[in-house]
């Protein structure tokens, strides 16, 4: 009895102490003590990474909406006619990413907040080492999630991200709108940062990024930059980008004109490609079955009979087959695998993929066979 009476206060103290300790631990775990209101941060929406003029140094460009721009956004967004600048750019140059960021931070009074970056713009002139460092630094960046879209440009990154389109006040919003709606684009070329980083580190596939050119109305996004590892290799023309879209299942609003027969035009060309790779006599053979669906848009006969539609489909199959053969030959010539044939082989036949050796040496030796089957729909057809 005496013992229990003596122990009770101790246990109460112990319980209270444990609860206080648990509360303190919870608070210390939060890591949110440096919270700051939104309007006390500089919200970076677009970040550009390009080589500085001085060799070996990287230039970071941060695009931040101005207070006036933010207020006009609140009024409903869109392409308003406000005369005040909607955003401003801050540059930082340094031998590495952190130092360049530090220099940029020193130029603004508020916290440069990277948690809302929507677009990362890389210059194609970045050296492999510099791109590697940039990707590694961005990968470790705490506040930034891995979802920003990545674009490339052959010109000045600063100019690209400072360019204003007619549709959106802020370039970041333009690219967000563009890439979010996959079926709205000719080819769904949007690549998130995590997808880009994953391709850079996955054997058997080349990283592909949409390349942006400036136009009078805003931007043109109909080309892709292709990387072999961290090496920038080439930029595909719009036509080759369409072929890539057919093979990579990202084609949505492509068009095709056939002089013969009937000067027919096809639109909404989309495709599903199945790839089957086999190993015969030590050589890899890849068969690509491309099933294309397209809508008959125009025909010189004005009315299309089933026979005429079949003739158009056959002609389209021949043309596309030829184009895709040429596309694959070009990729073999450049030692790049943008479609990811190697990755598919690795997932299905890892031993074959391993036996093939370095993929960018094995890829040019693959025997490709392309089968294209076009199904032409008439306007009003349900299938």
């Amino acid at each position, binding site marked *: 009895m005496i013992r229990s009476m003596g122990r009770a206060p101790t246990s109460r103290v112990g319980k209270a102490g444990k609860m206080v300790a648990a509360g303190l631990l919870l608070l210390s775990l939060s890591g*949110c003590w440096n919270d700051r209101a*939104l309007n006390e941060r500089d*919200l970076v*929406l677009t970040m550009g990474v390009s080589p500085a003029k001085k060799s070996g140094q990287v230039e970071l460009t941060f695009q931040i909406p101005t207070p006036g721009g933010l*207020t006009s956004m609140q009024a409903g967004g869109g392409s308003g006619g406000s005369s005040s600048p909607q955003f401003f750019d801050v540059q930082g140059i340094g031998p590495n990413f952190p130092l360049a960021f530090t220099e940029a931070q020193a130029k603004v009074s508020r916290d440069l907040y990277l948690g809302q970056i*929507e677009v990362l713009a890389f210059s194609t002139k970045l050296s492999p080492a510099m791109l590697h460092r940039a990707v590694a630094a961005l990968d470790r960046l705490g506040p930034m999630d891995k979802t920003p879209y990545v674009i490339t440009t052959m010109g000045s990154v600063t100019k690209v991200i400072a360019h204003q389109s007619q549709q959106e006040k802020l370039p970041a919003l333009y690219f967000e709108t563009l890439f979010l709606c996959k079926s709205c684009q000719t080819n769904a070329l949007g690549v998130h940062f995590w997808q880009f980083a994953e391709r850079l580190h996955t054997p058997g596939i080349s990283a592909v990024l949409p390349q942006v050119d400036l136009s009078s109305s805003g931007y043109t996004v109909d080309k892709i930059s292709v990387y072999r590892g961290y090496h920038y290799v080439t930029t595909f023309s719009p036509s080759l980008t369409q072929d890539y879209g057919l093979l990579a299942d990202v084609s949505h609003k492509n068009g095709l004109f056939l002089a013969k027969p009937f000067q027919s035009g096809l639109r909404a060309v989309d495709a599903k490609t199945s790839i089957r790779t086999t190993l015969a006599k030590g050589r890899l053979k890849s068969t690509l079955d491309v099933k294309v669906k397209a809508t008959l848009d125009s025909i010189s006969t004005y009315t299309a009979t089933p026979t005429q539609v079949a003739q158009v489909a056959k002609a389209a199959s021949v043309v596309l087959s030829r184009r895709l053969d040429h596309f694959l030959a070009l990729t073999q010539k450049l030692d790049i695998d943008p479609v990811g044939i190697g990755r598919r082989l690795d997932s299905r036949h890892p031993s074959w993929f391993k036996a093939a050796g370095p993929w960018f040496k094995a890829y040019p030796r693959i025997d490709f066979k392309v089968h294209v089957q076009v199904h032409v729909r008439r306007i009003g057809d349900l299938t």
Partner: protein
Amino acid sequence: MWPFRPRSTAKSKKPAQPVIPNRLGDTAAPHHESPAERLMEALSSSEKIIEGIIPSDLGILEDLITETKSMENRLDGLLDDMAGPKESMDVFSGNVAGAYQRLKNTMGQSPDIIIRQFTLGSKSPIPAVLSFVDGLASNQMIDQDIIALMQRYEEAESQATSTDELHRLVMERIASVGHVSMETQWTKLSVKLMAGNTVVFIEGNPHVLIMDTVKYPQRSVSRAQTERSVSGPEQSFNEVLLTQMNLIRRQLRSPELHFDSVTMGSMTQTSVVIAHIEGLTNPELVAAVKRRLATAKLDALQYAEELSPYLVENPHSLFPQIRRSERVDVIIRVLLMGKVAIMVDGCPRPLTVPSTFMDFYQTTDDYTATFWTASLARAVRLIAIILGFTLPALYIALTSVNPDLLPTKLVLTIAGSREGIPFPPIFEVLIMWIIIEVLREASLRLPQSMSTTIGTVGAIVVGTAVVKAGIVSDILIVIMTLAAVALFAAPVFEMATPWRVLFWVLIASAYLLGIYGIILTLMMVIAHLVSLENFGVAYLTPFGPLRPRDLQDTWLRLPYSQLLRRPTQLHAILPGKKRNPPTNLMNHPNLAKAKARRWGNGRD
């Protein structure tokens, strides 16, 4: 100067004399104080007292004299009543004069107690006394009853041969009327007198007649004010217990409906009725309710809410655990579910036990509309809880701590609206919430016509003004308005309070820990809700513990044809409801023939 010298002073100054024994046989009388000396002594002591008297002492003295007189009167009344041979002071002796004095000097000192003396019979009149509380008893009923009593006496006079027989005859005939009972103990008859009954004392008869002449001053049965209904019945309870029972009985005519009455409050003597349906409600539940009520030792029971601590197992919880309703239909529905209703005289909102969290989100309209409408309304209430409780906290967390979780366009819109605002988001929320609470409190206290104006003016003018003044952002106005309205979407007013209190906790958590803090707080609230239990029924049932069969009438209300079982956790004696499926009218032979003629035999 006082003209006489006090005797005591003179005595004290008198020199001591030698005592000489009387040996001569002289029997002279011993010295005695004269009346004059005694008077002198009294006057002298009075002089001393009066010298120290101040004006307030005079008031006290007057009170003392009054109380003493009152006490004297009471004692006189008691002594008069005790004049005859009797077993106890509490028993009426049959002495009407004594009873009159006792009444007059005790309860009769209050102006609303009426005491009248009269006689019964014409040949040999017998003295009698009647008493009632003016205002609580019906004068018309008193007149009728007294005339009837007089008639009975006159009729009995011719038949009776003795006084005792006369009393016996009258009592037999009077008591058979129905609303007349007899009592012999003062403690009991005084309580009945105070309840509005009329007591009649008859000389020589130890039985006091208690005539039920109760006429309650009561509010009419009106529309429910706090639980309004769009399409359901409108009747609500008033404060009178008998009316409450009548309203229930009128719609629930089963003889199995039981009202068990207990009296609580040693001073107020408040009637409390425990209602349940015998043969349906779990008897263990009824017994438990009675047991718990018996533990309440109160001197006064004024509000039903005072019983809550004795009925619930966690009386300090923020969440209401006893559903109260002023609606008659709700109480009947609850009784039919197998629950118990507790009605307290003077309180128009009976308590229902055991209550669950879901009970506070069910309304009459849910049962008078189609199941689609009811389910939609309940879903809206659920959304309202979530929105009202979490929206301001989410605003703080997402604008201060975790802005990376917001979509870019929304971030830009919020950041734009916050441009130029000098306060952090938490202060914005606090300012707005205080404004809303002040407006709410003010509109509650004002007359209804003005409260609407204050509400509207406050919402529009203050809302617009604080935005124009740059104190809060316009997005926050939207959020706070939605939150304030949503929290009051609970059909039962009491349920809004816990959310309003926890709101502050959630705000603090959001500010300190962001989304993590919100989730943590929500988990704690849910854990607390899960831990609550009353009469063996979990508060969060049928969600925790999960009882899928009881989900039929929760956030979704299934059609009546599916509501065939009473809640499992109540362990009702009749777990199922009697309801046959509706017959297909087209199966009627005549209709089937008509259909066949119209469509042919091959078609259904």
